[in-house]
């Protein structure tokens, strides 16, 4: 469904993504692992058409169509949503407004405000609060709910567990699994291997802008040492 091949992305003169390739199939959850500074966020931003980085080579195909070079709103409209690093909520919008600006309440198809509140009851209780008044877990739920409002087929999640309390990380894993069961493709950027393995079917490891490891989650679980050496965890 998503096919990234030989991607070359730069921040100024820094060659951050050096020929990375990966695929996400329909309804598949794929984890992208790697230490800090290895280019995970740059790769996600490149797929989403956000600048910087400056993509100078390679290809990003979505259902066979080249989407590299399209403005990010066009990419989103083709069915790719993003939960950006750091949530990036809108400080001056209420919880409800985060959802209704992307899909008016009159639209009754796919993800609706009512459905989102059913899926995230906590957000329903906070519907009149503004982005800045929510707890870390609520912020993350809102960032996910916001992404769902565009009825994506693939959702890019950039370190959603970052800064969450352990109990909230568990909760987030459940949410991701439920989204996966509903048929959504997921590309999850994670630093935490175990959090990634809890939800992913396949795992990629990015190191200095290249994919250096690629395996099924079940293979990793059988032989974790082969992977952990890349991540510097023991």
């Amino acid at each position, binding site marked *: 469904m998503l096919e990234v091949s030989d991607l070359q992305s730069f921040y100024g003169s820094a060659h951050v993504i050096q020929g990375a390739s990966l695929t996400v199939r329909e309804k598949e959850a794929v984890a992208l692992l790697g230490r800090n500074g290895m280019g995970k966020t740059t790769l996600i931003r490149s797929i*989403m058409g*956000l600048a910087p980085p400056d993509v100078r080579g390679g290809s990003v195909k979505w259902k066979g169509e080249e989407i590299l070079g399209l403005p990010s709103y066009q990419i*989103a409209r083709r069915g790719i949503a993003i939960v950006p690093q750091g949530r990036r909520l*809108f400080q001056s*919008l209420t919880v409800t407004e985060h959802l209704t600006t992307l899909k008016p309440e009159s639209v009754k198809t796919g993800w609706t405000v009512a459905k989102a509140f059913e899926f995230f009851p906590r957000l329903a209780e906070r519907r009149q609060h503004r982005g800045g008044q929510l707890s870390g877990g609520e912020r993350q739920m809102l960032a996910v709910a916001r992404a769902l*409002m565009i009825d994506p087929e693939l959702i890019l999640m950039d370190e959603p567990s970052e800064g969450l309390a352990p109990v909230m990380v568990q909760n987030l894993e459940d949410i991701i699994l439920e989204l996966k069961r509903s048929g959504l493709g997921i590309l999850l950027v994670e630093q935490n291997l175990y959090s990634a393995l809890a939800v992913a079917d396949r795992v990629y490891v990015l190191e200095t802008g290249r994919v250096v490891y690629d395996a099924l989650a079940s293979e990793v679980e059988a032989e974790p040492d082969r992977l952990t050496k890349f991540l510097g965890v023991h």
Partner: protein
Amino acid sequence: MGALNAFQILNGLTFAGLLFIVASGFTLIFGLLRIVNLAHGALYLFGGYVGYTVASLTGNFVAGILGAMVVIAIIGFVLDQGLLRFVRGYELRQVLLTLGVAFILNDMALVIWGGDTFTVPVPEFLRGAVNLGGIFYPKYRLFVLALGIAVFILLWLLLNRTRLGALIRAGVDDAETVAAMGINIRLIFMITFMLGAALAGLGGTVGGAFLTLYPSADSEILVFSLAVVIIGGRGSLVGAAIGALMVGMLNSVGQVMFPELAYFVIFGPMALILAFRPLGLFGRAA
């Protein structure tokens, strides 16, 4: 040097009404597009001339206002889509470009209307004075204050009660993320730029009826608008309203009590506010 009397307080308030109309457009553009549009004063003056011409030809003040708003919105469209789109993301180039456009608009105005001073003709019912408990005060200036309040209410409703308004607010917070959610933020930018320009046109016509129109009126209003937006905080409607009130009142105080220090009375407090709140009273970090 003398104390402020009711007349001068009303002068401050009514001037604040005009300042708000002009500065609200300025702060919308500054907040969302991150452009310090130095052509805003020129759009005000050009709008005033257009409003004068249309109002004189038709004999209709409202036609003058609408004509100015439409023409200035179109100029805003050309400025945004024809010029600014090529320097997006480069703040210095944007500022220099708008400064260049300000010079061009002013010279064009000089060619078309010459260097004479014009006053936009106002309808009969807004002429003369009303008796406010013993003070005879010009009706027209009270109309400007009322219009400023009406513009505030309408903009507040637009920003807080419509989907477009929510998208504009979201864009002020984080334009990139709005785009990543499938919204054509460029279109929102363009609409906002045209709206901000139209407000400059409205301000020019309304202001041109009591401050008069003359070459260099643009830079005077621009400097006041900058002060309003800097005090209020980028992109904040409430900030622009409070800023306009402060600048309007300080301007009255300055003219009455310290005529030789009139600008200092406005920009001294502004500098003081910035020292403690660098983003203005209602400003937020990007």
